[in-house]
């Protein structure tokens, strides 16, 4: 039993971002409670500062290693995913600011809960043990259930929170059952020890059972079909800024967990989990492409869109190779950026009488009245379809390349076809914005949202020329650190 790593502060270097977030969240909570007259905006600004600080620590003083008797690991992959999680969380706090009051989240607890949820996510990303995996997952989810139901006088938000809670509890139960089976059949809970037990022993049916339940529990969190049922209802019911947070950072953390569990713990039985991932991937892509066609609500449509994108990302993972994991890492980075951008636009859309625009028909005439917002939404829609030269194309290119390299041609063909079908509902939004008669006047979009939309728009359009190269290089290092 070694205790050296908790005795010196410098030995904890890999865990600095987590320590900063944990201490900072408690400090922000105390400041918000005891400093009178501090508005929710000031607390949110402190929280954003803290997230950016953790991001800075992560980027400027990178340290790798295994800590706390093997339950916590930091490698290039964990650092890459943590940057996405922290960035996504900070951006969704920022875009929540201008519309906090009307969405009922103008309380300081919102920022504190987002911080604690983000702490759970970075713990998930760094989990090297079934126990730390579960603690991180619960910390993340519990905070999300609360903020989904935070607008407590709105029956839809309460329903969303309750639905999310009940189904989340169910998925936690499945995950725990799987974890107990894996522990029972391998004799260890540490992810990188499980793989050794699997190699030594010929795989037992109990271990495969445990793995299936474990993957099902995580599939709930990334909302892959057939575990997606909660997604449209929760996305629609929760206040829009909360939906933005739900759609961005937690997906990355759960995807990172999925990748780590499959490639690290079950790397020696790739054939067994590959078929599960391929099924999840095909089901998600196809269902999302067809189910989104009939949607009228913008947030429901985005929910199906996010289910579809999880399916595309899983195409990369189902190859089970370094190239595939690299593709998923790039995909998640671009997905977070596009999600933040599109939700910034949705939060900013309001008619002159102050009503938020939540239906697709409500967008008509946006092209003439708010050309900037309409242009950003248009670019993002093209990017979500995956048209070159926008960022979304490179995301899909990489994952399909990995699948084709492993001779998964059927998967790749279905993916491309699903992508073509999904183009219909993305293009419909562009058609409504630019070619339909206006029904209402739109209010000007607040400055913070314009800034976020501008940055995301620039990133998406200039991806191949600016950030594409460094991002792909970082993703490559990240993927190689796992194999």
């Amino acid at each position, binding site marked *: *039993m070694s205790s050296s790593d908790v005795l010196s502060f410098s030995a904890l270097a890999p865990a600095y971002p987590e320590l900063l977030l944990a201490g900072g969240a408690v400090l922000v909570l105390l400041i918000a409670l005891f400093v009178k007259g501090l508005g929710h905006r000031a607390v949110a600004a402190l929280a954003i500062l803290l997230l950016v600080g953790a991001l800075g620590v992560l980027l400027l003083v990178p340290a790798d290693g295994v800590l*706390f008797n093997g339950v916590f690991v930091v490698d290039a992959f964990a650092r890459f995913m943590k940057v996405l999680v922290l960035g996504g969380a900070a951006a969704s706090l920022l875009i929540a600011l201008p519309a906090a009051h009307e969405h009922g989240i103008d309380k300081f607890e919102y920022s504190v*809960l987002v911080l604690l949820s983000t702490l759970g996510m970075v*713990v998930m990303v760094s989990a090297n043990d079934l126990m730390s995996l579960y603690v991180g997952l619960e910390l993340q989810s519990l905070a999300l259930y609360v903020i989904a139901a935070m607008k407590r006088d709105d029956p839809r938000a309460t329903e969303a929170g309750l639905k999310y809670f009940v189904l989340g509890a169910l998925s936690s139960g499945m995950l725990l059952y799987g974890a107990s089976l894996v522990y029972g059949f391998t004799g260890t809970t540490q992810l990188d020890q499980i793989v050794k037990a699997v190699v030594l022993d010929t795989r037992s049916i109990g271990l495969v059972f445990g793995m299936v339940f474990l993957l099902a529990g995580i599939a709930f969190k990334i909302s892959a079909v057939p575990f997606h049922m909660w997604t449209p209802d929760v996305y629609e019911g929760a206040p829009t800024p909360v939906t933005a947070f739900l759609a961005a950072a937690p997906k990355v953390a759960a995807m990172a967990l999925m990748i780590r569990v499959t490639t690290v713990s079950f790397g020696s039985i790739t054939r067994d989990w590959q078929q599960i991932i391929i099924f999840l991937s095909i089901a998600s892509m196809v269902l999302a492409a067809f189910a989104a066609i009939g949607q009228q609500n913008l947030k429901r449509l985005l929910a199906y869109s996010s289910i579809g994108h999880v399916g595309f990302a899983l195409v990369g993972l189902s190859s089970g190779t370094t190239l595939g994991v690299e593709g998923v890492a790039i995909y998640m980075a671009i997905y977070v950026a596009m999600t933040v951008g599109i939700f910034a636009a949705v939060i900013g859309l309001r008619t002159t009488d102050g009503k938020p625009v939540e239906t697709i028909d409500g967008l008509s005439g946006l092209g003439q009245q708010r050309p900037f917002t309409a242009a950003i939404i248009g670019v993002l829609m093209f990017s979500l379809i995956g048209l070159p030269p926008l960022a979304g194309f490179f995301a899909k290119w990489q994952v399909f390349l990995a699948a084709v390299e492993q001779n998964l041609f059927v998967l790749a063909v279905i993916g491309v076809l699903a992508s073509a079908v999904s183009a219909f509902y993305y293009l419909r939004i562009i058609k409504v914005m630019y070619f339909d008669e206006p029904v209402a006047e739109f209010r000007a979009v607040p400055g913070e949202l314009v800034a976020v939309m501008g940055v995301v728009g620039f990133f998406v359009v200039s991806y191949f020329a600016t950030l594409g190269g460094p991002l792909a290089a970082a993703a490559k290092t990240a993927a190689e650190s796992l194999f």
Partner: protein
Amino acid sequence: MTLPLFFFFVFSAITVASALMVIAARNPVHSVLFLILAFVNAAGLFMLAGAEFLALILIVVYVGAVAVLFLFVTMMLDVDFASLRQGMLQYAPIGVVVGVILLLELLMVAGSFVLAPEVTATAMVPIDPSMSNIKALGELLYTRYIFLFQGAGAVLLVAMIGAIVLTLRHKSGVKRQDVFHQTSRTRAEATELVKVKSGEGL
């Protein structure tokens, strides 16, 4: 008879007797008080067995918190226990079956030690005799699993914040007593000297 054996018989006799009184006492408050007596004596038994941390926790948590909560509930709810006992005989056979099964299971556990005494030597996690209970627990909770322990603490913090955010409502217009404000009033701001003209009043 050695001294530990003597204390074992004292504690266990009182535990069994007070456990019997918990279900036999007519007054529910007396039942709870006998329950507390049973807890304290069980703590004594734990102490004899060398589990000093468990003994102290039993007193702190069960006697200090749970039993007092029971006492409050029985005093406040005003349950009519006489009517609850009405159908006792009807359910007695099921109770006997459950009791017999429990007794058999206990005998099987105890019997395994008699039949195979070597089983204690092959424990998965053998007890380290050189270390006290509290040190062993501390080593696990605060050193080996410190990360998970603190993570669980963060989960509880979220639960607390969540419960407050989702249920607390600040009522406006409620008058509250502020003792500091009341006692710090001076005579000058509380009273007013008025000149009253004779025969006119205010």
